[in-house]
């Protein structure tokens, strides 16, 4: 393998390792690391070819993925505006009242609310809405913190694999590979539902003692009034339908195309809906762009597209794909196991975004070499989502939840968390492997 490395592929590998080092150690902000990595590769002429400059070829990896950036920006604005209505908090508070605050029912209700909100609104906005509600409940009802934080984090990560719009990496994979909304839901989404049951049962069992000691008097939540959480009725009446219509268009876009010949792509739909919302609700564009768009994530993706693009441009992806095939002898069952469980454990400790983007290219390369890779798409998507719940730092939404918890002096011990989370990563990984094997390889 080493004989196939050129100087540019070695540079690409070194830059990737440096980027990963800084991502894992968190010594520098993610966006900074990714963009500087990308710029370094361009300046070192890694992308130069006979026909185009290093920059031109590098920017191709960004322009090819502009729709992902557009989709993410559109959703950030749309969800950010609709959130101002208070409807999501109202739903959460309504659920708490419905289950009368009973700890186990509350855990299940909050878990599934997180799962389904993530499926359509993505995990970071979901966590930003639900984490404050959960933290107040922990304080008000004297609930044990870890079970509730754990279920929310687990479901936010699992939910990211449910639909193409639930997570940027799922969307990237679906778009790059050409997987339709219904394909993702009927494969990945169905398995997520199974994993959600497995995870909920696991959490109820693992934290049985803590949940037994939680005593909640139904009177404590009897005076909760979800309607009072509504902040802006106009946004509720007009903004929520705009968001729901956008989601429905994204869900049914393939059917719309088949019926009418009109192609409605996700980035255009979300950008249209979000900018229309800015107009209708008289929002100041500058404030929206500053407050609702997480530019760090956008630049992080831009940088990663170039860094991982370098691996593809210098044929390192081909070498990676070939190595994986060689190690497993091209045996699809072994590849499936490696991708599912390997992705799970890798994602527990390192940021799954660069890993996911790299593996999508690697699996595409395997496909070009004649291997039937269809099951591996689900293995990758699910494996990285499963692993995302494996540690407090494995995913951005975990960092948000535990960061907010720290501010409330709720400290989650890293090792204690791993001891609870890692077995679930393994269990979910095995369940996923089993289902995919049964469905496609038996």
């Amino acid at each position, binding site marked *: 393998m080493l004989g196939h490395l050129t100087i540019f592929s070695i540079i690409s590998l070194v830059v990737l390792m440096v980027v990963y080092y800084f991502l894992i150690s968190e010594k520098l902000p993610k966006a900074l690391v990714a963009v500087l990595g990308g710029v370094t590769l361009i300046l070192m002429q890694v992308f130069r070819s006979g026909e185009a400059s290093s920059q031109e070829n590098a920017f191709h990896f960004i322009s090819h993925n502009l729709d992902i950036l557009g989709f993410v920006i559109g959703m950030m604005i749309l969800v950010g505006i609709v959130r101002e209505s208070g409807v999501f908090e109202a739903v959460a508070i309504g659920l708490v009242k419905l289950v009368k605050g009973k700890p186990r029912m509350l855990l299940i209700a909050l878990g599934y609310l997180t799962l389904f909100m993530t499926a359509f609104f993505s995990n970071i906005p979901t966590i930003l809405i639900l984490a404050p509600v959960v933290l*107040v409940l922990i304080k*008000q*009802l004297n609930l044990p913190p870890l079970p509730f934080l754990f279920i929310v984090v687990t479901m936010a990560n699992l939910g990211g694999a449910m639909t193409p719009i639930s997570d940027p990496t799922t969307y990237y994979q679906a778009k790059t590979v050409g997987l339709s909304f219904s394909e993702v839901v009927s494969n990945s989404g169905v398995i997520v539902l199974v994993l959600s049951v497995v995870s909920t049962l696991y959490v109820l069992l693992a934290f049985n003692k803590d949940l037994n000691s939680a005593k909640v008097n139904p009177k404590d939540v009897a005076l*909760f009034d*979800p309607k009072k*959480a509504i902040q802006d009725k106009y946004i509720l009446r007009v903004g929520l339908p705009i968001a729901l219509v956008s989601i429905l268009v994204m869900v049914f876009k393939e059917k719309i195309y088949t019926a009418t010949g009109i192609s409605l792509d996700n980035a255009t739909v979300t950008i249209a809906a979000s900018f229309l919302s800015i107009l209708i609700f008289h929002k100041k564009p500058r404030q929206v762009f500053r407050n609702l768009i997480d530019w760090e994530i956008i630049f992080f993706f831009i940088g990663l597209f170039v860094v991982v693009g370098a691996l593809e441009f210098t044929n390192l992806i081909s070498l990676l794909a070939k190595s994986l095939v060689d190690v497993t002898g091209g045996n699809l069952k072994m590849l499936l196991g490696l991708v599912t469980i390997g992705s799970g454990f890798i994602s527990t400790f390192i940021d799954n975004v660069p890993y996911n983007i790299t593996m999508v290219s690697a699996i595409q390369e395997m496909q070009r070499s004649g291997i039937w890779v269809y099951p591996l798409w689900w293995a990758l998507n699910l494996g990285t989502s499963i692993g995302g719940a494996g540690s407090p730092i494995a995913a951005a939404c975990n960092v948000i939840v535990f960061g907010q918890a720290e501010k409330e002096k709720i400290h989650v011990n890293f090792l204690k968390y791993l001891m609870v989370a890692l077995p679930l990563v393994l269990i979910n990984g095995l369940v996923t492997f089993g289902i995919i094997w049964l469905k496609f390889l038996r």
Partner: protein
Amino acid sequence: MLIKEIYKKNPKTVSSSATIEEVIDSLIKNDINGLIVVNDNGVVKGVVSLQDIAAATIPRQFKNNIRMAAAMYKKGFFTEMCQGLMHKTVATVMRKEFVAVGLEDNIMAVTADFLKNDLYIVPVIEDKKLLGVVTRTEIKHAIAYGMRSMHK
């Protein structure tokens, strides 16, 4: 107008080891909304206002979302939060990084500071000695004085 013309002399102070309950009692008894916190040697260690104590009784999430506070009403929760706070020392809620002014500072700069940093009480310190305070009451009097001066 300079601070030396409007500041309140002989300010009320509280020890940094005092409990929050004692601070609240002092605020009520003296009909004021802020105190200067000093150590055993009389050195100013911080400032504490009613706002700082009130902020500690409210979950952070409610401060960011008032509607959520209205929707998640639990009888007795406010009492629980207050009781959870009463035995803590004032050092846990006071502002340790505080603005201090001198006698020759001008009222406009100090008022701007009040507005920008959401201040309620500012110690007047010269040669490391606490001489007095400027609170919103002094700002109020300064504005009234300024208005009357224009009419003369």
